[in-house]
């Protein structure tokens, strides 16, 4: 690995990236808040002397973004990293292994999203090529914003659009959600006929009596609004034709070079206007071509998403030929820096790469 790590550092230095020092021991909350509680059993937790929960660095994206926020650095800024991360029970690798080397680039605050997306994808592929010459990775690319635009064009109720977007990239859960969308929604008629103000007036004394008004959680307004949302859902379900269009969309695949035509043909056939998300996709595709990436080697899948909820549009993964676990993965995360405490929205895109997987793939003959 030292050879691969030094070649990675040379690659990052060539691009004149800032290489921040990211401590090995990190506060655990930002990871658990952002990636979810499921991460808890996959990371190494510890406790500081004053009771704060710490963890061994499980990845770099979140600490690099926190470093950017804390140092109040100017944007745009590009950061590179290469170093060990600690995980329990990663699916592959030697039995009992829990230390792996990750490298990657985070690109924060560039207003030209298309160019930044293209640069991130091109850099990920160039780094794989530098570390494993001759390896022809299989690349999958999806776009969550396009899926959001499809749901909007179909005029799906907000509740359902949010539910489907939440499961984007998880075929089984998305399928189950699509099926349950056809079922009637049961609502209790305890509040039948009440409008928002009447609901709040009814809920307030009940919450007060339960001691919940001061507890700092959900408010009578929150509950009233969801009661109204559910009532609207019960009255007008999602039509079978809308569900069929969504199911068809999720089956759409094409090589990236032909993807825009496929998307436009789909929109025409179903009379949908995907507007902004479609135009952003087109601009990104042009930028990817301009960056010299061979788009015929990348597979666009309308259903492809990575199992992390902070991505907002483009997401991609690169696999060794015949491999099922990604060598590298990345995407755009425009909400992440706000979630981590940035005072103003900072768009971001980045990728990371597992050095051990690239090394293993480089050692195998490529088909």
């Amino acid at each position: 690995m030292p050879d691969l790590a030094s070649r990675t550092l040379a690659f990052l230095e060539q691009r004149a990236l800032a290489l921040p020092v990211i401590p090995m021991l990190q506060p655990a909350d930002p990871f658990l808040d952002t990636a979810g509680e499921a991460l808890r059993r996959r990371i190494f937790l510890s406790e500081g002397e004053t009771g704060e929960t710490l963890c061994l660095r499980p990845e770099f994206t979140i600490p690099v973004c926190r470093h950017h926020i804390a140092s109040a650095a100017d944007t745009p800024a590009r950061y590179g990293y290469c170093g060990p991360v600690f995980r329990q029970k990663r699916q592959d690798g030697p039995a009992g292994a829990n230390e792996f080397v990750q490298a990657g680039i985070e690109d924060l605050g560039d207003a030209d999203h298309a160019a930044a997306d293209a640069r991130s994808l091109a850099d990920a592929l160039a780094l794989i090529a530098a570390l494993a010459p001759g390896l022809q990775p299989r690349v999958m690319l999806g776009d969550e914003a396009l899926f959001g635009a499809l749901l909007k064009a179909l005029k799906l109720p907000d509740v359902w659009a949010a539910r489907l977007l939440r499961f984007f990239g998880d075929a089984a859960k998305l399928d189950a959600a699509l099926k349950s969308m056809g079922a009637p929604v049961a609502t209790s008629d305890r509040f039948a006929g009440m409008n928002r103000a009447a609901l709040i007036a009814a809920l307030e004394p009940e919450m007060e009596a339960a001691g919940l008004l001061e507890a700092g959680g959900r408010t009578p307004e929150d509950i009233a609004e969801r009661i109204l949302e559910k009532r609207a859902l019960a009255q007008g379900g999602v039509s079978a034709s809308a569900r069929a269009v969504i199911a068809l969309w999720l089956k759409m695949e094409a090589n990236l070079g032909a993807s825009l035509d496929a998307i436009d043909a789909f929109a025409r056939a179903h009379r949908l206007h995907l507007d902004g998300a479609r135009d952003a996709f087109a601009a990104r595709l042009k930028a990817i071509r301009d960056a010299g990436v061979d788009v015929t080697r990348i597979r666009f899948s309308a259903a492809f998403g990575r199992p992390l909820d902070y991505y907002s549009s483009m997401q991609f993964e690169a696999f060794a030929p015949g491999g099922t676990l990604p060598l590298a993965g990345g995407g755009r995360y425009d909400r992440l820096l706000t979630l981590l405490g940035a005072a103003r929205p900072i768009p971001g895109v980045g990728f990371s790469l597992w050095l051990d997987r690239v090394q293993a793939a480089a050692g195998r003959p490529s088909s």
Partner: protein
Amino acid sequence: MITLALPSKGRLKDDAIARLAAIGCVVEQTGAGRSYRGQMHGAVDADVAFLSASEIARELASGTVDCGVTGEDLVRETIPDWAARVMIAAPLGFGRADVVVAVPHVWHDVETMEDLNDVAAGFRARHGRRLRIATKYWRLTQDFFTRTHGVQAYRIVESLGATEGAPASGAADIIVDITSTGETLRANGLRILADGVILQSQACLVQRVGLNAKEAAEAASLAALLNRA
């Protein structure tokens, strides 16, 4: 001879000893009244260790006792990868309790886990923090929320004392806790979700994997007698 761990106090201890007596196994506490060692004689002989129910689960996992009577909830919660390390040999029909998801009763819009998923997903945008779940059962909670229902957006607050008080005190928004009649939950203004039963637990005879042939035969005859009764 196998080592059998039994609950060291309370209803669980009395029920376990009575149940063993019913199959012809007499448990005697050796030495003074407060001793934590004992013997079982009769249909099956065993060395007995009296431990707390959660210690029994841990000792089975580490292999220091061969069999034990403890709750299924504790087996699933306390032992990582439990199915590879211990086996539930006989459900015993007492110590029944459900591990459940309960929300404030006034959350009239939240009846199912799907509703809860909607609320959890929008929680941070509305309140600047994740939905908090107070529980002593973080492993069962994660499995149920994340694997079964695809809920990602929540934080677990480990609760040491009375979990059911957490929503009113502001320590958490909802809870995952154990209940037998639901009375305590109702008294605290909480309601179990329609599909919120994570586990219907009861006391079980649990044995560790990797017993030698003789021990395995003794454990099997104990389990057979308990299953028949």
